[in-house]
């Protein structure tokens, strides 16, 4: 907590309201110190030379100096080492910011032009305001209805873009460490009211939060809503015990691995049944077909809103195995998760080559892979 002790600096720092915020500020202040140091070093040197070596003889030629290998080495290598140090520290913080812990509670976020919509698993819905408990790890599962937005809470030092697409959820996490009310901003330009897409997150003590939850919705939890949608949208007509084996059963599926193949290739590979996979299955069912089943599921794109989709996921999670939603993959199991399709890999994790059982670390995997590793 170095930063707390640097006098006079706190006015230029936001509240440190998350568990990793102080670390971010520590690196920041180190860099500020480094910047001040080198700026002063060069600035004073320049000024000193400027004054001391002022031209006196209009036509004099000073003694020319070619250079110095020693100096060149010194001022290449030393800055590089300093840079390596900063780089490593930055990586450490980054991994912490983007490694979702296993025991986080979910908050579902939908960004759309130009508002933030939140859903608590317990059922509360909020718009532009979010209440969360202090001291608990919160995982934000986020989607956008239209363009790219970015969910930013400066006090948490937390930000990530939310990119539209049928098979991606963006997830970030934070553990609030102080109660209070803090800004929420959209940090990726999204159109006319981009600067109006702001809100407040209120971090409350456990007691206050429980009270707030209790005073809330009355329309049931997200899982309840999801169950209702499961009926009203007709999912239940197929995904049920006596469906003559047409559709895979969904009980107990959340968080485990499923064998799938793409629509036109029989090669089977494994994916993790997580939020992104379910989303893709609803919006783009032909991308991955569960092994042994026909690709007959229709797409629900346009018929289910982002919030409804999140409720359905909450429902499926609620009928999932007892293990936590972020069940860690066993070490050594195949890597490809149903992650956001990255640039060089696919949502369907390379249907061309059959995946073998051995662990293949794919350096181009998305964030999700880290989410399921034990920290």
């Amino acid at each position: 907590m170095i930063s707390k002790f640097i006098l006079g600096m706190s006015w230029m720092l936001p509240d440190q309201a998350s568990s990793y915020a102080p670390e971010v500020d520590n690196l920041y202040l180190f860099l500020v110190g480094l910047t001040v140091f080198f700026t002063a070093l060069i600035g004073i040197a320049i000024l000193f030379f400027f004054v001391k070596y002022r031209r006196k003889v209009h036509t004099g030629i000073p003694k020319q100096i070619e250079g110095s290998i020693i100096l060149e080495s010194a001022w290449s290598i030393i800055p590089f080492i300093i840079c390596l140090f900063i780089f490593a520290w930055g990586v450490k913080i980054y991994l912490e910011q983007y490694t979702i812990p296993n025991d986080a509670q979910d908050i579902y976020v939908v960004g759309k032009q130009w508002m933030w919509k939140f859903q608590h698993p317990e059922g509360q819905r909020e718009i532009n305001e979010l209440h969360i408990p202090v001291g608990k790890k919160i995982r934000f599962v986020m989607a956008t209805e239209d363009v790219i937005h970015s969910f930013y809470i400066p006090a948490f030092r937390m930000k990530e873009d939310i990119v539209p697409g049928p098979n991606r959820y963006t997830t970030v996490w934070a553990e609030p460490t102080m109660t209070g009310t803090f800004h929420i901003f959209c940090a990726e330009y999204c159109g006319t009211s981009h600067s109006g897409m702001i809100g407040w997150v209120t971090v409350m003590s456990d007691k206050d939060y429980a009270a707030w939850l209790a005073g809330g919705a009355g329309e049931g939890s997200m899982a309840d809503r999801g169950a209702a949608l499961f009926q009203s949208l007709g999912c239940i007509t197929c995904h049920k015990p006596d469906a003559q084996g047409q559709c895979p059963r969904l009980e107990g599926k959340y968080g485990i691995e499923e064998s799938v193949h793409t629509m036109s290739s029989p090669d089977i590979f494994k994916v993790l049944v997580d939020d992104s996979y379910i989303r893709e299955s609803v919006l783009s069912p032909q991308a991955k077909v569960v092994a042994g089943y026909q690709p007959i599921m229709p797409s629900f794109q346009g018929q289910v809103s982002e919030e409804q989709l999140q409720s359905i996921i909450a429902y499926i999670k609620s009928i999932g195995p007892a293990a936590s939603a972020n069940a860690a993959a066993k070490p050594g199991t195949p890597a490809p998760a149903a992650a956001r399709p990255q640039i060089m890999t696919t949502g369907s994790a390379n249907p061309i080559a059959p995946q073998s059982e051995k662990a293949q670390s794919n350096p181009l995997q998305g964030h999700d892979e880290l989410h399921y590793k034990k920290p």
Partner: protein
Amino acid sequence: MNGEPLNYLNNGHGIRSWLLTKDHKRIAILYLISVAFFFSVGGVYALLIRINLLTPGGVFEPDTYNRIFTTHGVIMVFLFLVPAVPAILGNFLLPIMIGAKDLAFPKINLLSWYCYVFAGIFLVVAIVAGGVDTGWTFYTPYSTSYSNSNVLLAGIGIFIAGFSSILTGINFIVTVHTMRAPGMTWFRLPLFIWAHYATALVIMLGTPVLAITVSLMALERVAHVGIFDPAMGGDPVLFQHMFWFYSHPAVYIMVLPAMGVVSELIANMSRKNIFGYKFVAMSSLAIAVFGFLVWGHHLFVATQSVYLGIIFSFLSYAVAIPSAIKVFNWTATLFRGSISYDTPMLYALGFIFLFLIGGLTGLFLAALGIDVHVTDTYFVIAHFHYVMVGGSLMGFLGGMHLWWGKMTGRMYPEFWARAATIVQFVGFNLTFFPQFILGYLGMPRRYAAYPPEFQTLHVLSTAGASILGFGVAMTIFYFIWSLKYGKRAPADPWGAPGLEWRIPSPPPTENFTELPVVTWEAYEFASVPELKEAEAAASNG
């Protein structure tokens, strides 16, 4: 005018002789006029931005403000920063500095200017027809499927501007390779040339990728189908990768030539060869190469893979080192120099100081953990304005002062120039330093309105912007004034060793009456006749 010797300015009169010229110097002047025009437009838009941000609620409608900042960005990036130093100073000086009569392809040079003008016209039309509101980065799917603005026109304008840039780049590379005077070996070239050579490499390899990216985006917008909108199967992040693959190297297009200018300023105004000449020359090439490997640092929070983020972060630190090398070498050059207090030196020192801060704040952004917090905030805006305005603009203005006499035959007024420099320096820092603080406090960029607690810093920033604007206006004013009333410039006002100082001010159309044969090293001050004679006189008397 009677009695005035024949030079490139009076060699041929009338608008046709200018609009159809093949003389690289005249083309440089054509660029100067058009670039100055667009810079002024972009500058006005900057002031509009700052006016809007005086109050938390904003002054303009958000939609208007969005168009204002987009216009500012597009004009400043594509119509000022990319062409300014290369197309004005580079065009004018590159052939002279290497001892050639012109660039390799004079007609293509003229064509590049016409491309620039057409690009400008397209962009002006886009602005007048209502503007563009996507930000200069045109992220999809907003730009392809949601924006109600003249994206297509702007895209075409940018495409044509890219062509202008590419044509200049080809000219520079071929000229440096094939038209150096006898004796002008690679390591006798002024560092200005090395910088422009490296810039031309970046232009050639990067700009075509921008061209195809902008084309694909514009086509997608018109055809309602494509590869960047997820609703149609595409990936918005692919657009970002392709866009930044050019746009990151582009910032080196914007800064490398200015660094070349700074080398000339420091050397000439301190009468010393640049300390570590070879290192500075090679660092330009290193920046050009490494600059292509870091584009992913614009996507750290854009759902790019964490592993990719780590790689790009590392490479981003690698690209910082060659720039640091330059700064150290320039500082070392001043040691035991004979330092003039004239305006070009002031700009050089301003550049070093401001670019240093800008570059060091780049280290903040390259640190993954910090970038998560400050990306897309005013911290980034402050960073790039420090390097682009504190860096590139100062370098450009310094070069304009150093070579103004050579180009126009008139000297600028030294007193007012120094005053303007200081005004600009103060104004600049007041404008952008508060923005570092704003950014870390969480103020996002591209916001038309903001929470009230940020107002003080914004007001300071706007105050600074007015001062900076005033300072720049001073410069423009006295430059124009000097054309009629400035002192006549001698061939060599500075006692400088480059080939450009051995020919009259302004130079004759063919540059050299006799082909030079170079037998001296770069920055060999003993080769300057004035200085050589004085040394001889001093040692004799």
